């Protein structure tokens, strides 16, 4: 590495706009380290490693990370003008194509970063939670690529709903452990992975799947995902001669969201729009402890979950609600503390898009642009359709993932509804 290259790397990882939360994990009133004492030394060790390797590029960590993102991951991903959507909305619509990253979603940016960091830290084993299996498959790929043994915890109900992803993880050599406690979905899988970690901290790294959890996870995952905005910002300027007016991304835990927003936060002219899953309705059923959505930024309130203070879907006692969404990747009762903070500050605009609009968005991007998006991503396109009149004249939308994983769900959900822009599949159903 030449002098210039090294300096560039450090400038990259210490970019302005990425200082929030770095030192103490606090984003205003949000963030923190609410974990059992047994885990405190592990997250302190991780915070130290984050500073040395990720921020200071010790032993050339950042250089190796970027090289592997290019060679193994296929970065940079393109920024593409969406011609039909631009015409439809009478505004310039640009797509950041994270669906073209290896694995088909933005998840690899984080998984590769963390597994590599674990290696630099001398850890010998990787564990991770997964909901739909997207983060699990990305972690399994990264672990195979870097030759690390890996165990993935997945709720039993999710295992039954997401068989292909279970196979993908196993094909990459990971062990998949079903979680049967509670309701058998993502939040139980996170709790179970934390339990494993409490027993194995000395030689194991926990690769968390979004910008959630105790410090330093939210800042570290953001920094790994911020490559999205780093590229998108340069690409927009290069292709259009200026900054976008709006940046749009879907938000579950918020890793693709914060990754897409990061380098635009200081550009005050750029509106940042986080699109959450509005599910079937924004109303909640307190009695049953169910929120038929996962709009924690839009409707949630402050509380402590999985190691951080953030916005949550909870009942009046503070019990966490079961969230729901047509897309399992957005189906989480919490959200990253940094996004909660940026929403309170008025910097990020949270919006909710319901299941129906998301499904329409899924079909629209598929049949107008030739890109089948993940159902998570489809929420961002549901938003465009509903709110394009409020947007400026240059909009960047993050295509966080491709929809191959969702074909069965999409066909089934389309079948149950009257979706105006869906293809007629009637002659195939029954046979499929």
């Amino acid at each position, binding site marked *: 590495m030449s002098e210039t290259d090294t300096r560039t790397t450090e400038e990259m990882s210490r970019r302005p706009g990425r200082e929030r939360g770095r030192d103490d994990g606090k984003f205003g009133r949000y963030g*923190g*380290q*609410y*974990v*059992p*004492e*047994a885990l*405190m*030394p*592990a997250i*302190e060790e991780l915070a130290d490693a984050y500073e040395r390797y990720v921020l200071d590029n010790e032993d050339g960590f950042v250089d190796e990370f970027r090289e592997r993102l290019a060679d193994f991951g296929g970065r940079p991903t393109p920024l593409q003008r969406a011609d039909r959507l631009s015409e439809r909305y009478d505004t310039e619509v640009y797509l950041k194509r994270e669906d073209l990253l290896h694995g088909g979603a933005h998840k690899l940016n984080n998984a590769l970063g963390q597994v590599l960091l674990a290696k630099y830290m001398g850890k010998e084993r990787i564990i991770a939670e997964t909901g739909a299996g997207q983060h699990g498959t990305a972690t399994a790929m990264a672990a195979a690529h870097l030759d690390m043994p890996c165990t993935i915890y997945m709720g039993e109900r999710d295992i039954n709903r997401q068989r292909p992803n279970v196979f993908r993880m196993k094909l990459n050599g990971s062990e998949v452990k079903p979680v049967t*406690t*509670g309701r058998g979905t993502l*939040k139980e899988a996170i*709790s179970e992975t*934390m*339990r494993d970690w*409490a*027993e*194995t*901290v*000395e030689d194991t790294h926990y690769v968390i799947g979004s910008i959630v959890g105790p410090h330093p996870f939210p800042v570290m995952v953001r920094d790994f995902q911020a490559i999205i905005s780093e590229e998108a910002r340069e690409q927009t300027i290069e292709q259009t001669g200026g900054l976008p007016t709006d940046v749009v991304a879907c938000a579950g835990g918020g890793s693709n969201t914060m990754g897409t927003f990061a380098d635009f936060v200081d550009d005050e002219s750029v509106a940042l729009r986080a699109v959450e899953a509005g599910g079937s309705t924004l109303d909640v059923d307190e009695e049953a*402890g169910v929120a038929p959505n996962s709009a924690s930024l839009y409707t949630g309130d402050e*509380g*402590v*979950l*999985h*190691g951080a203070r953030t916005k*949550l879907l*909870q009942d*009046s*006692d*503070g*019990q*966490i609600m079961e969230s729901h969404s047509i897309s399992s990747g957005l189906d989480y009762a919490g959200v990253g503390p940094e996004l909660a903070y940026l929403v309170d500050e008025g910097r990020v605009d949270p919006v909710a898009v319901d299941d129906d609009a998301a499904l329409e968005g899924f079909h629209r991007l598929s049949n107008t642009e030739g890109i089948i998006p993940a159902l998570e991503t489809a929420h961002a396109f549901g938003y465009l359709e509903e709110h394009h009149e409020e947007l400026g004249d240059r909009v960047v939308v993050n295509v966080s993932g491709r929809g191959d994983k969702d074909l069965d769900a999409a066909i089934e959900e389309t079948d149950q509804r009257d979706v105006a822009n869906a293809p007629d599949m009637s002659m195939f159903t029954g046979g499929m």
Partner: protein
Amino acid sequence: MANSEAVAAAFDDGPAYVPYLVVGDPDYESSKAYVEALDRGGADVIELGLPFSEPIAEGSTIQEALVRSLDAGMTPTRFFEFAEELDVDAALVCMTYYNLIYQYGEGEGPRPFVERAAAAGIQGLVVPDLPAEEADPLREACDDLGLDLVFIVAPTTRDDRLDRLMERVSGYVYVQARLGTTGARDDVSDQTTQSLDRLREYDVPKAVGFGISTGEHAERIVAGGADGIIVGSALVDIVAEGVAEDRSSAEVADRLEALSRELKAGAERGHRSRTEPVESA
């Protein structure tokens, strides 16, 4: 170092037996009978578990118990009523997660929960997901209202953190006997002895928990220098078995009382072997 006289007294003469059960497991009335059985069996302090939907520090035994209790309708409001109705001599400590404390009642912060707990006769709190660094608002409310705030020390806790914890702890320190989550185990780990050695210089009662299930364990741990033993999963197992085998609550209560006597007697044997070194030779 102690806010509650009742908790201090529990460690004053002889080793303290500190059992834990999930309140409302498997239902409100049986659970009351079970807690009272612990008291008859010699409990000095009773840790009452208030169930949270995401108990990240708990092993599967206690997690399942928390789910049974939640499914049967346990809430913070009912929990405090339960504590008020109990007829026990032991000091009561509430073990729960921070979000329930934080959300309770009107107004900001943890104070309303602590006020209600004090009114219900609760003498202390254990909050496994609240590290010392985040605990100041709760500690202040506890100090004002006379409750102890117990912290957990893990085998991985480094010395600099130990000082920070010990500055803030009151009542007793919960010495986690091994890495991992709660759950009954067969052996007593070396990590226990090491932890007790590290804590010797601090002037606060040391109660050891995680994995104690027999009188013999209790004896060895107290002989090794513990001032008290905390027993959770082994007792919760008895409740779970009662559910699985469809036992009457009277029978389950008897079993809880019997194991309590065994544990307490073990702790006392361990204590005697310390004060009368001739016997242990």
